[in-house]
């Protein structure tokens, strides 16, 4: 039995396109319904990556932009597994992250926040999961920062996460939040997600077991991508 199409995406679990309280979504959300497709070769394939694409230091945000020393901030490890909805590991998949520094300032020419840039912190990293779907990064904990939505909105501390999976229809971008942050429940972007259990899925718990004594703390963030049906009682996709 060879896997076939991916499970239908649960669009009641994901945020809807239009979420009034996240203002930018108002003019950037389609008004008409999506066209639902059954999977074809165009959907069940996707780009693949290998160790030639990245360097070993790319997952160490404490060192990958260091110029004169280590960046300022709370040293943390972020680690976890990439799984599919069947609980199977997703091996050799590309995980990319980006984030603000400890002041809540991004190294981006469009960010004009007065929080200071850190000369030793770039704020991006990438890695491939291993054969068990496991990944890890080392970084500093990002700061909260203000943004123009309502006049006094602040994003909770977060790390942006991009994952590929094995097919273009598994492509996902999300944000990881930190356990206990009181800004999470106030955030209009977090609250685009209707189900509080789905929001919980984005909150990484403190993981003392993975912390390194006298060096850095750790947070655990597992990522779940869409799973696939097996081809029971049916012809396979043409050409498969």
């Amino acid at each position, binding site marked *: 039995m060879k896997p076939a199409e991916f*499970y239908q*995406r*649960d*669009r009641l*679990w*994901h*945020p*809807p*396109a239009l979420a009034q309280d*996240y203002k*930018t979504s*108002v*003019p*950037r*959300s*389609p*008004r*008409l319904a*999506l*066209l639902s497709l059954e999977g*074809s*070769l*165009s959907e069940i*394939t996707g*780009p*693949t990556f290998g160790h030639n*694409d*990245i*360097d070993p230091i790319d997952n160490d945000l404490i060192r990958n*932009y260091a110029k004169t020393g280590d960046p300022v901030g709370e040293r943390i490890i972020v680690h976890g597994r990439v*799984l*599919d*909805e069947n*609980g199977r590991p997703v091996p050799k998949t590309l995980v*990319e992250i*980006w984030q603000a520094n400890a002041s809540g300032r991004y*190294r*981006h*020419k*469009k*960010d004009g926040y007065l929080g200071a840039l850190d000369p030793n912190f*770039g*704020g*991006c990293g*990438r890695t491939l999961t291993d054969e068990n779907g496991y990944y890890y990064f080392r970084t500093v904990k990002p700061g909260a920062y203000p943004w123009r939505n309502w006049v006094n909105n602040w994003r909770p501390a977060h790390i*942006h996460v*991009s994952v590929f999976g094995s097919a*273009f229809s598994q492509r*996902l*971008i*999300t*944000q990881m939040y930190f356990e206990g942050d009181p800004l999470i429940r106030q955030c209009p972007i*977090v609250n*685009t997600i209707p189900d509080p259990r789905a*929001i919980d*899925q*984005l909150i990484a718990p403190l993981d003392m077991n993975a912390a390194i004594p006298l060096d850095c703390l750790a947070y655990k963030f597992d990522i*779940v991508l869409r799973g696939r049906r097996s081809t029971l009682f049916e012809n396979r996709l*043409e050409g*498969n």
Partner: protein
Amino acid sequence: MPQPLDYLKETPSQTAGPYVHIGLAPGAAGFSIFRQELGQVIAGPDTKGERIRVEGVVLDGTGAPVKDVLLEVWQADSAGIYPHPEDPRHAECSADFRGWGRIITDFDSGQWMVETVKPGSVMGRNGRRMAPHLNLWIVARGINLGLQTRMYFEDEDNAADPVLNLIEQVDRRQTLLARKLAPGHYRFDIRLQGEGETVFLDV
């Protein structure tokens, strides 16, 4: 109580935000960090096929260009083969062909441009061939879940394409057709909302 279904739930999506370039295209964010940035070359110099250039802009519901958008392309080679193990012909895929790329828009104008090879037609479901197309994935601030669509070519025979024919309102099919400006040169504008809204897919 029946047995519980033990499937996991897919991690919910969140917007890529305004600074998506830091992670996915740091050069565009204004700094250099990695030895190589991924997604800059879809088809290398040795890839077979007709070279094409596609340009366009993403427009919001007011008709204004979206200047902080990031697009990704996934396509077959000129023989309609994907460089992926699930394609039964992948061993015959053109050399030097990645099939995947990232497109950054100009921060001032919102215009984007990509160079690649024209894809061949790909076998669809039930033996029905799909007309040549690029698969596109669009993320930006204000987009909560990446939008999927396809770009077809107005100078190809699209009449029998099984996906285009699923679009009930016939007039909307042309929102997925790239206009030919010159040989090998196409224009594809994406309208997120409102008049002429592009057809987006749940794949």
